[in-house]
């Protein structure tokens, strides 16, 4: 089978982002960039299926500028087979991302698309659901377990939802988005890194895809919220209970 995994280049989750002088975006210099953590989990899941189902190909897709090569190479070093980079200097809103991905999928024709549930920079949690709808495929988001049927024609997916765990069955092709508990991603091994250099990484300028990426959503302004002030330390449990009762009046 063929599995397509989406990969977004995002700042390392430990980074502190600063708003630029114009208040339109964040300062991109001097940041460490990584594979979106949820996409790493999606890659890992693809690789686990590949290890179980022989003849499986795992293809990575990213939309971004040239620098996103680095994140695709990371995924290839983990064990993915090849990668596609749709070159775009403009930031796309989630609907535009989904439209570009649909176009790539029309050529690649995967049986399964694995994505992260959310990109940790924009925290949108949208692209997977939108892509599934554009393709007319079923979706199973926030996955914590993925079981392929023996005939690989459907999958049972357990999802992290409010109040518990839900299990759905979706016929393939389908879009599945990864939550934190789906797996623990492997690190790229040294031989993996060496091999990744020779794997195919195809670049496609976004204009060649002929997709209308007119944004539906525009960022008007970006700002830093006011910081919560630290309070004070109390010396004992007794003092804590007293201040919560008498001062804060919350118990």
């Amino acid at each position, binding site marked *: 089978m063929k599995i397509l995994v989406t990969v977004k280049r995002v700042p390392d*989750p430990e980074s*502190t*982002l600063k708003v630029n002088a114009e208040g339109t975006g*964040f300062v991109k210099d001097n940041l460490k960039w990584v594979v979106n953590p*949820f996409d790493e989990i999606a890659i890992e899941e693809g690789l686990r299926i590949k290890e179980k189902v022989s003849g499986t190909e795992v293809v990575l897709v990213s939309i971004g500028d040239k620098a996103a090569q680095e994140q695709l190479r990371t995924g290839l070093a983990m064990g993915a087979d090849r990668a596609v980079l749709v070159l775009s200097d403009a930031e796309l809103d*989630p*609907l535009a991302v989904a439209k570009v991905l649909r176009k790539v999928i029309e050529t690649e024709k995967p049986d399964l698309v694995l994505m992260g*549930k959310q990109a*940790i920079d*924009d*925290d949108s*949690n*949208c692209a997977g*659901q*939108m892509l*599934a*709808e554009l393709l007319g495929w*079923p*979706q*199973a*988001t*926030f996955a914590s377990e993925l079981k392929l049927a023996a005939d690989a024609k459907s999958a049972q997916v357990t999802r*992290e*939802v*409010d*109040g*518990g*765990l*839900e*299990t*759905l*069955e*979706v016929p393939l092709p389908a879009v599945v988005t990864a*939550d*934190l508990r789906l797996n623990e991603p492997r690190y790229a091994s040294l031989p993996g890194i060496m091999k990744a250099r020779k794997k195919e990484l195809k670049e496609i300028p976004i204009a060649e895809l002929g997709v209308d990426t007119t*944004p*539906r*959503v*525009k*960022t*008007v*302004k*970006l*700002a*830093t*919220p006011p910081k*919560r002030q*630290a*309070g*004070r*330390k*109390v010396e004992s*449990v007794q003092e*804590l*209970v007293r*201040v*919560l*009762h008498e001062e804060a009046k*919350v*118990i």
Partner: protein
Amino acid sequence: MGNVLLIAEHSHGKFPKTTLVGLTAAKELASKTGGTCIGLVLGQGVDALAGELAEYGVNVVAVDAAPLAHYVADAYTSAIAEIVAQKGVEVVVGTATAMGKDLLPRVAARLDAGIAPDITGIVDARTFQRPMWAGNLIATIAVESTPRVVSVRSTAFDAAAKGGAKGTVEKASPAVTGTTKFISFNETKSDRPVLTEASIVCSGGRGLKSGENFTTYLEPLCDALGAAMGASRAAVDAGFVPNDLQVGQTGKVVAPTLYVAVGISGAIQHLAGMKDSKVIVAINKDEEAPIFQVADYGLVADLFKAVPELTEEIKKLKHA
């Protein structure tokens, strides 16, 4: 002059607080578009729910169909899209619950609409505020399409109350299509308040060291306070507690009157889910732990000693 359609999520025959928060935002938006706010109830056997929603002063559309008995994204999207077209809807609103996050982007794609996910503020009928980067940036975004879709952060608005002239209830039977099959729901059983509704939340982190310690130390504290229990990602990943207790950037967002963080370091991803709480208490043995930078009251102590003492003191206070 377009209308605003609220997708009224329900569970166990009730509207949770999160839905009523969405209703407040939907009404506010309707006042900005100049249209009316319509509530949409989807499911099987939803007559009573539809009637109840009308008591909040909105007109209700009820869709009662067997394929909608359990929520699944594709079937719900098909039904919603038809209602949107019939009712001249300009804005589709829901709450950013697990269901809302799964459903609303799909609805937006069906409508070729822009979406404002997880909003915390309404500037005008198409401009919204939303947190990004674990709440460390606030974006003001303009959604330039009509219709458009909005999901509302459940801590950002008050819950709507019943009142006003009772709305009408109308039945609709849109076509329902989809290939997703609901198999099962393994519900976490608990007698404690729901995380997103509780006025007090006590959360435990890796510092608790085991699931048994959550039972021995944190649960009695929750019960003494009448609090909901929450957890950090590290505690959930380690299997100490179920996943739906995770508070944070990629878990639940809460803003109770009192939030007690026990054995939690205070990573930005955790703070993203609780820093709008009214009063924050932190108990941690490391006085340098970042959680103290947002805590109103910090207690530097070994939790295994401090938490049982705290539970006893609270019980004493309540019986005084």
